[in-house]
């Protein structure tokens, strides 16, 4: 049982993982991540890749909405920007895989900065709705700028190549996606130990007070938009390599809502919440399919799976918001506390 932890240095105080137990479990997690692809079949590797992409994207959205308090429903558009950039570069220029991802993230960042411009004039829900407008405008561009984006046919992406190895199946791709995701997660966690991260949190809590304290609002809000869009752009690039095709229909409003729901279900304002939310929302449809398969229903269950998935999605959002507003991260923390303080009650 851990009662308290006295920190002797500033570095120890700021550490992301402050106890030996935590570091131990982290080691276990990394070992598990390394062993996973050897034990799992192609289907689970596919799911793992999808979860990783969603984790990156949700972490980005979490930076913007969870930590800075700026609700954005345009996240899917930034994924789209990243995906299209990567698709165009890979298909037409054949440049290096990692470079493409960075450029994709960069283009998405520029998009994010532009979309974030109104954030000084409008706040709250009005900002959310202006991001919806941005999403539709970008979607229109994806559909109609046929010369660049291939219009409604979309673009097909050749498989990624890293050091001469062609990443064409889920196993190989896993080894690229997961380290990248872990790196980006550490980056995000680290961000909130710095000045910038604390400024974001201040803006979320009370932006006018933050301004009074000397935080230039527009600069930091734009930075938040830019950073979150960078994450989205990288996620979009990974998406392009993963699915090997990019169409304008791949990034609808529904995807933005999915990511926002993942942020909320996971727990706004915590990195762990981002991971849990993304994993949970990605795996729920699979779980649902399993459950429906077990139920003794006559006829073709396929017809009811899709509506059930929609209902489950909505019910999860409503349920979490009413009963557990701090999301899965809170549940996780409570369970952890239970084990920490055992045999005492929490």
């Amino acid at each position, binding site marked *: 049982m851990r009662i308290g932890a006295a920190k002797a240095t500033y570095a120890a105080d700021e550490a992301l993982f402050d106890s030996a137990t935590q570091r131990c479990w982290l080691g276990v997690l990394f070992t598990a991540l390394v062993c996973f692809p050897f034990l799992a*079949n*192609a*289907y*689970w*590797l*596919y799911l793992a890749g999808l979860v990783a992409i969603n984790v990156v994207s949700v972490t980005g959205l979490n930076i913007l909405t969870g930590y800075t308090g700026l609700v954005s429903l345009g996240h899917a558009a930034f994924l789209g920007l990243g995906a299209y950039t990567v698709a165009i570069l890979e298909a037409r220029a054949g440049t290096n895989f990692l470079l493409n991802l960075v450029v994709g993230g960069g283009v998405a960042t520029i998009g994010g900065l532009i979309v974030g411009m109104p954030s000084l004039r409008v706040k709250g829900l009005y900002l959310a709705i202006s991001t919806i407008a941005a999403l539709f405008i970008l979607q229109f561009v994806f*559909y109609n700028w046929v010369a660049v984006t291939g219009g*409604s*046919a*979309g673009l*097909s992406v*050749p*498989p990624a190549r890293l050091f001469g190895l062609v990443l*064409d199946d*889920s196993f190989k791709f896993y080894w690229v996606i997961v380290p990248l995701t872990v790196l980006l997660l550490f980056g995000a966690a680290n961000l909130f130990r710095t000045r910038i991260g604390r400024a974001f949190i201040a803006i979320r809590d009370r932006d006018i007070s933050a301004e009074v304290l000397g935080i230039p609002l527009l600069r930091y809000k734009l930075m938040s938009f830019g950073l979150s869009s960078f994450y989205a752009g990288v996620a979009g690039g990974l998406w392009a390599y993963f*699915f*090997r*095709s990019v*169409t304008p*229909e*791949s990034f609808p409003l529904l995807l933005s809502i999915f990511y926002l729901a993942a942020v909320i279900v996971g727990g706004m304002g915590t990195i762990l919440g981002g991971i849990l939310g993304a994993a949970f929302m990605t795996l729920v449809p*699979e*779980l649902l399919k*399993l459950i429906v398969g077990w139920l003794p229903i006559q006829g*073709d269950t*396929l*017809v009811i*799976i*899709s*509506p059930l998935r929609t209902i489950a999605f909505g019910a999860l959002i409503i349920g979490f918001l009413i*009963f*557990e507003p701090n999301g899965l991260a809170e*549940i996780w923390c*409570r*369970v952890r506390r*239970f084990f920490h303080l055992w045999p005492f009650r*929490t």
Partner: protein
Amino acid sequence: MSNSFIIRVLQLLGLAAGILSTAGTVYAEEEIVIGGSIPITGVFSFAGVNIHAGIGDYVKLVNDQGGVMGRKVRYVYEDTGYKADASVAAFKKLTSQNPVHLYYGDSTAFSKIINPELNRTESILMTGASFATEINDPRKYPYQFMVGPDYQAMFALLLKYIAREKPNATVAFVYSDSEFGRDPIEENKKTVANLGLKLVAEVITPPGSVDVSTEVLKLRRADPDYTIFHGYVLAPIPEFISLARKMGMQSQFMGTFWSMDKNNIMKMGEDADGFLGIMPYRYSDDASADAPMLEKIRQIRPGYQSTTYLQGFVAAMLLLECAKRTLEADQELNAKNLKAAFNSIKNFDTGGIIGVPVTVKSNSIPVGRIYKADLKNGKMVPVSDWLTTE
């Protein structure tokens, strides 16, 4: 939520995870697997549900007769909602879980997108709901085929019919803003010019749109003799036709394969009398001809079966025929061999579903017939022979 409740939920989840991890791929060896990205929900769900039934019925028929060369056929599928990226995801999922040799894709967009992957893996022969002209090219799409003539050929047949019935007639194209809708338009503008007809209006509707009143106004201005719809299964054709008639438009309406379902047309009421279109197959309730396969279908499923059902049925028939020929030649079931088997299909009898024995050309089955809607008798009447398209 109390902690004990949470602990119990966690235990349940752990159990589920444990069971999930064992639910891997358990498939019998020596099986032929047909994979399908099927639009069971979404804007094409009417077609998707029937296609699904058609494929399933044919697979069951074949399995009941002992399978293909002694191997059982298994049909695995995922719902896509007619969204291209969901189709791609379904493809990835199905091919990672099963040894898929034959595939049915739900849309033109999907067929185009998945093509590089098919070319890379060279293990799957694919057909689908698309009759897109671009796909009817064995050099660019070596491992795909379509279950009928391509849209451009369908359009050309309709335009030729118009040119015969009324030389120098005016024509309008109404199509949806999607891959499906746009496919044949450019090429057919040239055909229109070649046949001496005049294209007076081109109306594009956003996919899934419901309110077409402004588009009909445009159409009325142009007042064409013939209006060809393409890129729709049902909506918004009934709305177009009903509004157009109310405005006093005298145009004759025509459609391509997917809008030719008898029930859908009959539901449109007297406005749709005389609706013309291309059908590569007979209608399922056509008892006039000697068609043993149609008889079988009528036995399995009494009552009228949609044209979309027939499309799925014939698709499965052709896919399994290719598999059969490949196995008969003692060859491995890979894309090259399966496609070679497809190319070897000459004077093939579809059991009467298609009115004449078919020989494949490029990636298509170039046979079609023009039908006209006779609302009074509730029937679709053929107004041409079984034509071979060029």
